[in-house]
């Protein structure tokens, strides 16, 4: 009996392959984008975890040098002998690879994952790295490939790495979480060292959290759009099967059995669609991951593996959310069928016609969501509130779309003079409920495109001018030693270059990790730096050691602004003279005058210099031939700018790709809605045809109708998209990155986007319209015939 019933139910799909396709493809697309994004996130998180485990960052308290970046090994032994359970770490670079040495015997549990054969780790002089890193590592030691090691890092025994780096000291000490009963105070034992609590170190996971939240939001948006397709397909299929259901019930199949069978049917179809989606998702993620990796490295210095693994966390969640989504979409229809009287009309209603009551509810919901968005704008705090605002605003706008479009169509109908035009507008208005889901999907896609395009382009404009300000020196040079630094400073001054030494030290400001810079205030700074806000004479005060400049990140996170005071050393508290924009850097910075810095940190000597010159080429030659500076220690300003811009472009490649995909899914939603509605359209169009409109003309009008919808949706999407851009720039960015960007408008981009959207809509409508034009008169006439 079950088999017979199921066969009867499933035969529907056989006769309506398009619906089946829409169902599966919709679900597959939704799942693909969602699980693809999740796959990227999972891969990145796995890399962070590997890095955290390898580097111990954020996991353990650390002992770090009060100044500089070296700890004497004798200090480490003295700490151990006094009862401090600390473990040595040495860090350095070989080429582009970060080489990390540690002592596996004393290191805390959970640190230094993946050393392959642990016996060999101590006994033999070798390094361990993943395949990618191992290939890039140029050392005379054997490198053992271990996929568990974070990308970009090679690990080895502390002794091996000390020899490799030619050092006899250490970089930092990890503090075991459990310590013995009694220990002397650190400052008595080693006054030059500083204890840094675990939560104070920059946690890559936290820094990149916003980026991943961003991706997740996009994934969810795509998923919602895909679910629109599924929802409308299921709705139509179930409506069309009322007859079958009635017949089966009349033949004695119990209602609960029918409902269960239909549930099973939806479940099986959902699993197939979602399974396809997971495979597609893998493809999407694998294609995007390299760009994501570059973004994360460039923006946060976080290393992410370039290859994707099939993790249950993302494909499992992809399957689950897709199946749940499909069941939710089917739930309402099953409920209707469960409540349908046995002898109810088997003829499908024009199911898409929404009643006035539903419209009112929708309107009320839209208003409510927009009101919540308004409240969040005024009173929200934090990134999650920012995204909640985004969600309320977008969904509210989407729900409001039919309510906005309807009056427009009504006005057009009233203004129409010819009977065909009048009919066209009236009919367009009647199509609105049936297409509103697809239109909402289109609205979301277009608004997201407008919003993100505005953000990216605004960011780009700002970023380029920022680079021009901040990278004023034509040449940068990094000294290998204090002696070389002194030689460079005097040699360059002699060569006629304007030398700008940069003094820097890691410190804590206003409870946050920050870099303290000492700069030689001169025309370069005075002329090229543009402050977000400043007091009069800001640079003079900084030069005099009476004020500081902070970057925007630090100011916003600490809730400080120009005029407030910050403590830059235990007994030095200075007012903030200016706040400077600092894009592309997640960390806080405080800038003081060179003299003040040298007073505060006499042990720090400048290692980096900016050089102002009219002839960088000549200066380069002097540096290399006369001062013996290594080529690798010289950085050209132009190369640096190009690199920064590249990082920037890659950052938004992913976003752009997701944008395009979202628009494509929306176009697909439109196509599917139109196709599934096409059957219902025949009885609506037959009288018009009988009254003297050719099928060709009707088909053209159908196409035009879609264009009208697309245009109206685009027009509505413009303010929504700009609102979205504003939220992204003024709220999300501030919460996620700590900087606020000015918003610029790009009308040409919007126009182009509008054209794309209309083209997408035309593409979506072309086939249904073409099919309509080819409908044989017979099929139209059947509408009127007795047999029906």
């Amino acid at each position: 009996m079950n088999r017979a019933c199921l066969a009867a139910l499933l035969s529907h799909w056989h006769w309506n392959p398009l619906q089946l396709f829409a169902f599966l493809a919709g679900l597959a697309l939704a799942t693909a984008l969602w699980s693809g994004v999740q796959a990227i996130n999972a891969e990145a998180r796995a890399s962070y975890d590997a890095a955290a485990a390898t580097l111990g960052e954020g996991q353990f308290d650390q002992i770090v040098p009060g100044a500089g970046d070296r700890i004497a090994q004798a200090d480490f032994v003295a700490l151990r002998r006094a009862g401090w359970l600390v473990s040595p770490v040495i860090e350095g670079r070989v080429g582009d690879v970060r080489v990390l040495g540690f002592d596996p015997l004393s290191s805390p549990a959970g640190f230094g994952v993946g050393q392959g054969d642990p016996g060999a780790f101590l006994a033999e002089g070798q390094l361990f790295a993943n395949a990618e890193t191992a290939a890039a590592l140029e050392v005379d030691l054997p490198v053992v490939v271990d996929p568990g090691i974070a990308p970009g890092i090679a690990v080895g025994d502390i002794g091996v790495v000390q020899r490799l780096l030619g050092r006899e000291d250490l970089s930092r000490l990890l503090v075991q979480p459990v310590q013995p009963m009694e220990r002397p105070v650190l400052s008595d034992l080693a006054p030059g060292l500083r204890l840094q609590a675990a939560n104070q170190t920059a946690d890559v996971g936290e820094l990149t959290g916003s980026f991943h939240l961003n991706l997740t939001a996009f994934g969810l948006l795509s998923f919602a759009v895909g679910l629109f397709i599924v929802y409308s397909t299921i709705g139509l299929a179930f409506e069309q099967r009322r007859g079958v259901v009635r017949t089966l019930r009349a033949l004695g199949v119990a209602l609960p059995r029918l409902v269960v069978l239909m549930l099973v049917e939806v479940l099986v179809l959902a699993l197939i669609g979602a399974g396809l989606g997971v495979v597609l998702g893998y493809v999407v993620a694998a294609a995007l991951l390299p760009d994501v990796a570059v973004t994360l490295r460039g923006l946060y210095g976080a290393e992410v593996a370039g290859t994707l693994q099939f993790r249950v966390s993302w494909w499992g969640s992809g399957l689950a959310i897709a199946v749940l989504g499909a069941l939710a979409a089917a739930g309402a229809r099953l409920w209707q069928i469960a409540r349908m009287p046995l002898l109810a009309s088997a003829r499908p209603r024009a199911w898409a016609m929404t009643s006035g009551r539903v419209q009112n509810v929708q309107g009320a919901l839209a208003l409510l969501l927009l009101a919540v968005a308004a409240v969040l704008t005024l009173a929200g705090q934090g990134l999650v509130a920012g995204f909640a605002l985004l969600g309320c605003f977008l969904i509210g706008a989407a729900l409001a779309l039919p309510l906005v479009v309807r009056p427009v169509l009504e006005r057009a109908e009233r203004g129409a003079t010819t009977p065909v035009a009048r009919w066209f507008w009236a009919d367009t208005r009647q199509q609105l409920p049936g297409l509103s889901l697809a239109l909402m999907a289109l609205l979301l896609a277009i608004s997201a495109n407008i919003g993100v395009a505005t953000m990216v382009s605004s960011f780009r404009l700002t970023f380029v001018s920022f680079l021009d300000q901040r990278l004023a020196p034509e040449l940068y040079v990094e000294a290998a030693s204090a002696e070389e630094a002194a030689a460079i400073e005097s040699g360059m001054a002699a060569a006629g270059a304007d030398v700008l030494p940069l003094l820097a030290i890691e410190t804590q400001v206003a409870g946050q990790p920050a870099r303290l810079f000492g700069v030689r205030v001169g025309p370069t700074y005075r002329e090229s730096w543009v402050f977000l806000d400043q007091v009069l004479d800001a640079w003079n005060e900084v030069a005099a050691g009476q004020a500081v400049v902070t970057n925007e990140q630090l100011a916003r996170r600490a809730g400080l602004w120009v005029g407030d005071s910050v403590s830059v050393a235990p007994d030095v508290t200075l007012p903030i003279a200016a706040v400077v924009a600092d894009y592309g850097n997640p960390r806080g910075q405080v800038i003081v005058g060179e003299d003040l810095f040298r007073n505060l940190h006499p042990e720090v000597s400048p290692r980096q210099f900016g050089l102002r010159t009219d002839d960088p080429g000549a200066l380069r030659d002097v540096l290399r031939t006369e001062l013996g500076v290594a080529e690798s220690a010289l950085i050209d300003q132009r190369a640096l700018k190009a690199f920064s811009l590249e990082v920037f472009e890659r950052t938004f490649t992913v976003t752009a790709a997701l944008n395009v995909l979202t628009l494509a899914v929306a176009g697909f939603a439109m196509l599917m809605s139109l196709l599934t509605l096409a059957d219902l359209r025949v009885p609506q169009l037959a009288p018009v045809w009988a009254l003297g409109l050719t099928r060709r003309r009707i088909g053209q009008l159908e196409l035009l109708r879609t264009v009208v919808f697309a245009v109206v949706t685009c027009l509505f999407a413009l303010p929504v998209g700009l609102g979205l851009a504003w939220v992204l720039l003024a709220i999300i960015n501030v919460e996620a990155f700590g900087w606020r960007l000015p918003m610029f408008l790009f009308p040409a981009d919007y126009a182009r986007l509008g054209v794309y959207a209309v083209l997408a809509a035309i593409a979506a409508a072309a086939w249904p319209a073409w099919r309509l034009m080819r409908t044989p008169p017979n099929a139209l006439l059947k509408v009127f015939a007795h047999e029906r």
Partner: protein
Amino acid sequence: MSVRTIVFVLIWPFAAFAQGFAGLGTDAEGFAVPQPDPQFDFPADHGPHPDYRIEWWYLTANLEGPDGTPYGLQWTLFRSALAPGEDEGWQSPQVWFAHAAVTTPEAHFATERFARGGVGMAGVEASPFRAWIDEWAMEGPDFDTLSLRAQGPDFAYVMEMRAEGPLVFQGEGGFSVKSAEGQASYYYSQPFYRIEGTLVLPEGPVEVTGAAWLDREWSSQPLSENQSGWDWFSLSFDSGDKLMGFQLRQRDGTRYSASTWIGADGATVAYPDGAFVAEPVAESAVAGRDVPTRWRVRLPDQGVDAEVEALNPQSWMPLTIPYWEGPVTVSGSHAGVGYLEMTGYE
């Protein structure tokens, strides 16, 4: 599997077998091997022997508080060589680790340390004697006069010790055979320490006095592959006599035992396999397994037929390689106290 486990495995092979790493380090390639008829050279032999694979300075003490409460204490420093010899700095192949524990009738505290040789984190010097790892130390002007300290997150102790008898050589003049196949170690003891000092427990400090027993052993030969664990007894009778006896449990159910009877004056009688018999009488559930915590111990030749019972059956050492070690009381033909170590109980 951590590096620590590997290091540990080298020193206690049956633990390794029990953990399933059979075959690791079963050859003594490159390491010196103990030979019969040893000629010891003191104080130099109190110091490390880096050409041998494994070595330990193993101290246990039975203590008593002012109110008569019995306590136990353990301080052990292990040396495990990845390769024979010594080298500078981190290149040293010597790895050190240590265990410290305090046992009360109600509680058992244990902790461990690991360190690399060559950089000063740990080591042993013969004269003046100094054995240390981190802040833990056993040191003094000579081997007979030592101070001892160690601490963990929840306990600490500081002790003074003075030897009141001679060194005792186990087996054949310090050559201790461990299996029928001939695996052996150099093994001598100083079982005559008087000890006093302060235990720091979570409840507060306790002044204690008692007797301590120090074992010195080094070898390069892991035990036989068919041995799954050992039961090791060091018993001090009220008569002043002492008994060291151990049995190595073999997978076929048989045992290989060895023992030394130590007279109150330090005179020794070594017994071959089979003379010393230890049979479990009662087990306790400890750390999720059953461990014998009451034994019948016999050495018929000395008229010993005694019952040995754990002071605290929960004297479990939950360390990188877990085992049982704690103070015991002796009753029956002889009365006294002692220490029991049991390894390889799954």
